[in-house]
């Protein structure tokens, strides 16, 4: 990866900066379990796992929202599809995480291809509304799924196994499996955004007209990105179900979709690192503020207003401004 950052150094010094920042985040996360153990606060591991689950989801949303300028308000549907893939398969006696991940991604790919192909016929606020509508359809489908608990959701018998091994059974195992997936998703998306495909996607965000005048038809690229984002978000759903050992339609409500967008806005869209940081901070604030007061949402709202007013680029914009991360502007 170092030769790559050097190649790009003249054009985008910020690239190396945000990669370095992401590596720092991973390094800090990696020492959370021993630290929690030393502090005798095992709950921290559970919170950090949740933070990382939502970081995966936020990264996937950043691909379409930040890089593709497709503002999807139904992204939580894929979180739910991933979670219900675990519930349905484990009920059928399939407890293997790898199989569950594959099933979740396959289901999400089908759902994303169909709904994406329809949604991408619209633009702007209509795209937001139609993705919201599809998300709600998925939500109400599982609400009425009475054999899986309907509105109340369903508890899982146990966490998934990994190739026959009970890796996820204890909190640190669950934590490191999630961290591994987070690193993999980040690395994959980072490469993707620099690839030929990534350039077409980003170029379409900048000017669809210009892309057409170069000879591109944006639709297949946008749809592919939409499907990839759905599949990756379902990975987060699989881990969310395993972490909570419980699955409920609430995972895919439109509140969740909105919350994911909040994470992106808080962290800064279109930089991956920002999305990841936004998710980590949002969940941490939720957990932290919820302990201080039951009216924590008010405090969180004030923080968001502050970000929107004073740092439109989110946390990554803030870091850039104080000089911690450089960016070619």
């Amino acid at each position, binding site marked *: 990866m170092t030769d790559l950052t050097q190649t790009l150094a003249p054009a985008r010094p910020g690239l190396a900066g945000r990669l370095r920042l992401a590596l720092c985040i991973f390094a800090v996360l990696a020492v959370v379990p021993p630290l929690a153990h030393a502090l005798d606060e095992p709950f921290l591991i559970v919170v950090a796992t949740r933070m990382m689950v939502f970081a995966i989801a936020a990264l996937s949303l950043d691909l379409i929202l930040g890089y593709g300028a497709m503002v999807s308000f139904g992204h939580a549907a894929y979180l739910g599809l991933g979670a219900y893939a675990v519930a349905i398969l484990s009920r059928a006696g399939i407890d293997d995480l790898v199989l569950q991940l594959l099933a979740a991604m396959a289901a999400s790919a089908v759902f994303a291809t169909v709904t994406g192909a329809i949604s991408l016929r619209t633009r702007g606020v209509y795209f937001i509304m139609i993705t919201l509508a599809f998300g709600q359809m998925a939500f109400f489908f599982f609400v009425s799924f009475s054999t899986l608990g309907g509105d109340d959701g369903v508890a899982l018998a146990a966490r998934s196994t990994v190739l026959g091994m009970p890796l996820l059974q204890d909190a640190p195992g669950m934590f490191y499996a999630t961290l591994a997936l987070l690193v993999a998703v980040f690395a994959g998306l980072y490469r993707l955004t620099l690839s030929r*495909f990534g*350039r077409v996607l980003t*170029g379409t965000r900048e000017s669809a007209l210009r892309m*057409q005048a170069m*000879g591109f038809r944006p639709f297949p690229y946008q749809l592919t990105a939409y499907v990839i984002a759905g599949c990756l978000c379902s990975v987060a759903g699989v881990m969310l179900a395993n972490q909570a050992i419980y699955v409920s339609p609430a995972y895919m409500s439109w509140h969740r979709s909105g919350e994911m967008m909040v994470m992106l806005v808080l962290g800064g869209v279109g930089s991956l690192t920002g999305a990841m940081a936004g998710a980590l901070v949002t969940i941490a604030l939720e957990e932290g503020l919820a302990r201080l007061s039951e009216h924590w949402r008010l405090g969180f709202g004030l923080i968001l207003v502050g970000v929107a007013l004073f740092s439109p680029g989110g946390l990554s914009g803030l870091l850039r401004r104080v000089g911690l991360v450089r960016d070619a502007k």
Partner: protein
Amino acid sequence: MTDPLLSVQNLSKSYGALKVTQDVSLDVREGRVHAIIGPNGAGKTTLISQLSGQLRPDSGRVVYAGQDITRLDMAGRVRLGLARSFQLTTLLPSFSALENVALAVQAREGSSFRFLRPAATEQALNDQAMACLADVGLSDRAHRRAGSLSHGEKRQLELAIALATRPRLLLLDEPLAGTGHEEAAQLVDLFAKLKDRVTMVLIEHDMDAVFALADTVSVLVYGQIVASGSPSAVRADPAVRTAYLGEEAAPC
């Protein structure tokens, strides 16, 4: 006589009661520069947009290299070699100049469904893009963000992108608009050099440029072609003088 490279046949388009293109027919021969002039609001950009595929005509046909392309979209026409530049600069502002052009190279060379290899490390893309930047004289700006270039440089970059699509026919919509005197002279030199490589349809207000470059001039007034012919014939046409060039242009 060979067939024209581009043949526009009875093209018409209306916005409600406003007829922006009225029964326009014109032929562009390969290797020529065909200028379209006319007062503001004559429908020049609307005409170019129908030639490039951005707008659908209400009736009429556009035939390019013997193929009816009336219903083909812009991307399809670009792939056939019909490129355009925009009157209002249309670039990818956060991409570097090199990346803008490399993307146009990428559009015609190989699949863009490649997900892992960083495009910046593809030497073939970069080399061809650099060659196009050199053609328009922008080599030293390759790594600048397109959004931070000067207005004249942006016009040059538009042209480099169009050249990177390997056009056979170039539709230029007021390529000199907003450029300074020196920049305009440079661009005119550039077009004169390109004449050997590519056929051009040129919309331009700068009459010096038009008469320096064009082999054929068509005059568009209220969506209709009122005169068409060699530059000297069009200049002498009394209908053109009253309709467009006016008293002011009479001495030339």
